[in-house]
C-alpha cells in the first residue's frame, strides 16, 4: 500500500506542473479520440435516426448487423485497418500507418456501430413522436429533422459520449496501427501500457488520473445536458 501511495505522490508531482511531454500525450489522446468520435458520429447518428424513423425491407437485418458489429473485437478492427493502410494495402498510398490518421480511422470504425445502435435505441420512440409533432405543426421535412434533433439532443449526446469513452480507453488496436511513437502517436492508454511494462508506475498513474478526470468531465457535461 505504501508503495502505491508513493507512486501516487510521484504521479501528482508529475501533474503539477505537468511536463510538456505529458501535455502532448493528453492532447493527442483527446484530439485522436475526439476526431474519431466526430467522424463516426457524422455517419452513425444519421443512420441511427434513419433506422428509428423509416420502416423498410431489411431494416431488422441492418439492426442485427449493427449489433453484431458492436461485438467485433477491437483488435480485429486494428488488424483490418493495419492491412488497409500498410504500404501494399488499399489505402497504402495515403501513408497513414503509424500516424494519428490511422488511429482516428480505426477508432472511428470501432465507435461507429456503438453510436449508431445507441442513437437508434434512444430515439426509437422519440424520433417518431418528434416527426408527428413537427409535421402536425406544419414543419417542412428539413425543419422536421431539426425538430427531432432538438427534441432528442440528449440521446445524440449520450450516444456520442459513450462512443468517445469507448475509444479513449482503447489500447491494443491503437497501439497496433499507431505504434506508440514518442511525440507522434503516443496517447494516454498506449503510454500507460508502455510505462507500466518499463516499471514506471508513477507516469502510468499520472496518466490514469488524467483519464479519470476526462471521463468525469465528459459525464458532468452529459448530466448538465440532461438537466437542460
Amino acid at each position, binding site marked *: 500500500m505504501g508503495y502505491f501511495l508513493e507512486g501516487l505522490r510521484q504521479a501528482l508531482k508529475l501533474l503539477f506542473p505537468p511536463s510538456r511531454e505529458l501535455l502532448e500525450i493528453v492532447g493527442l489522446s483527446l484530439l485522436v479520440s475526439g476526431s474519431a468520435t466526430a467522424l463516426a458520429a457524422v455517419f452513425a447518428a444519421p443512420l441511427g435516426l434513419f433506422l428509428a424513423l423509416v420502416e423498410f425491407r431489411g431494416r431488422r437485418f441492418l439492426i442485427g448487423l449493427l449489433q453484431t458489429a458492436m461485438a467485433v473485437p477491437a483488435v480485429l478492427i486494428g488488424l483490418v485497418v493495419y492491412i488497409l493502410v500498410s504500404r501494399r494495402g488499399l489505402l497504402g498510398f495515403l501513408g497513414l500507418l503509424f500516424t494519428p490518421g490511422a488511429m482516428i480511422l480505426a477508432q472511428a470504425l470501432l465507435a461507429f456501430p456503438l453510436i449508431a445502435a445507441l442513437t437508434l435505441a434512444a430515439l426509437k420512440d422519440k424520433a417518431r*413522436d418528434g416527426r*408527428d*409533432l413537427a409535421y*402536425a405543426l406544419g414543419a*417542412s421535412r428539413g425543419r422536421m429533422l431539426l425538430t427531432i434533433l432538438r427534441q432528442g439532443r440528449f440521446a445524440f449526446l449520450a450516444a456520442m459520449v459513450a462512443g468517445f469513452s469507448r475509444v479513449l480507453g482503447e489500447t491494443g488496436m491503437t497501439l497496433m496501427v499507431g505504434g506508440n511513437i514518442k511525440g507522434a502517436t503516443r496517447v494516454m492508454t498506449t503510454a500507460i501500457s508502455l510505462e507500466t511494462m518499463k516499471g514506471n508506475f508513477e507516469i502510468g498513474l499520472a496518466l490514469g488520473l488524467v483519464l479519470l478526470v476526462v471521463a468525469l468531465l465528459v459525464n458532468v457535461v452529459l448530466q448538465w445536458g440532461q438537466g437542460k
Partner: protein
Amino acid sequence: MRIEAQGIGKKAGGHILLRGVTLDFPAGGVSVIIGPNGAGKTTLLKILGMLDKPSAGRMIYDGRPAHGLPARDKTALRRRMGFIFQHPLLLNGTVLGNMRHALSLRKRPFEAERVEEALGAVGLAGKKDLDVRVLSGGEKQRLQLARALLLEPEVLLADEPTSNLDPLSARTIEDQLAALARAGRTIILTTHNIIQARLLGSRLFFLDNGEIVQSGTPGQVLQNPATLDVAHFASITNVLNGQLVRTGEDASLEVGGAMIHVVSALAPGPVAAVLRPEDILLSREPFHSSARNVLTGRVEAVSDLGMFVLVQIRCGEMSLRAAITRSSLQELGLRPGETVVLTFKASAVLVFPVD
C-alpha cells in the same frame, strides 16, 4: 376543407389496423369517431391528418388526392390542419417557447397578444414561463389545445383529447372544441366517451376492429345500435344471453328459465339481447300497461349515481339493472331484499345474433 377517405387500409408489423374505411367529412361540424381501445382510431386520425400513410385506398382533400403530391403541397395541406395527440407531444422548453416555436414552424410572426389570448382560453395564462416538464397531464393537454388554437386550423383533429384528464381540464377542452365548432371550424374527434360524443358530435362513426360498423347522428346510432359492441357503448346496459324461440308471429327470448317477449326477425337459436336500464319501469304492484313484459324480482343493491339511481334486481337466474330517478326511489322506498315488479316493452329488448 373537405376531407374524404376512400377505402383506407393500413397494415403494420403484420397486423391489419384498418380495412376499407370510407368516410366523408364535409367542412364544418363535429365528427366523432368512437370505438373500443385498439379499434384503429389513432391510426385512422393520423392518416386523416397526413401524419401516416395508408397501405391501401386514398385520401382526398378538397377534391385533390394527396397521394403523389410534392412535399411542399403536403406541408401546405398539413398547415391547414391542427392535431391534438392523445399523449401530449410538446417541444422541449417553456410553455411560451412551445407557442413561439409552433408559429415559427408555420413561418408566421410572433404576436404576443394572440399567444396570451390562446393561453388564456385554456387557463394557462399564468404558466407561460414554466418548463413543460413540470406541467400536469391536464395542463399539457390544454397547452396542446392552446397551441392548436393559436395556429387557427381549418380542421382540428383531436385524438381522445380528454382521456385520463381531471374533470376541469376535460371540461375546458370540451368547451373550447364546442366554441371552435360554433365558429365554423371542422372538428374530427376520437373518443370512447359516449357522453362526450353525444354532447359534441353532429356525426358519429363507430369504428370496431379497423372497420366502420355504423354511422349517423349520435341519436340514430345510439337508439338503433347495429351491433352488440355499439350497444355496449350506447349506455350502461343489461346483456342477456339466451335462445330465441318463435311461436307463430311471436318471438320470445328464453333466458335463465324466464320467457321475455321480444320483437325480432332473426331465426330461432342462440342470441344476445340488450335491455337499457332506463327502459325498465319499477313498481310495487303490477299495473295495467301495454308493455308485454312483466317480471317479479328481488332488489339486490341500490346505487345512487347522482344523475339517476341504479337498482340491481335478481329475477331467477337473471340479474337486471334498472335506472330510476331519485324521487321515484323515495316514492317506492326500495331496499335490498324487497320484492319489486319490472315492466318493459317487447320492443325495448334489442336482439343481436351471436357469432
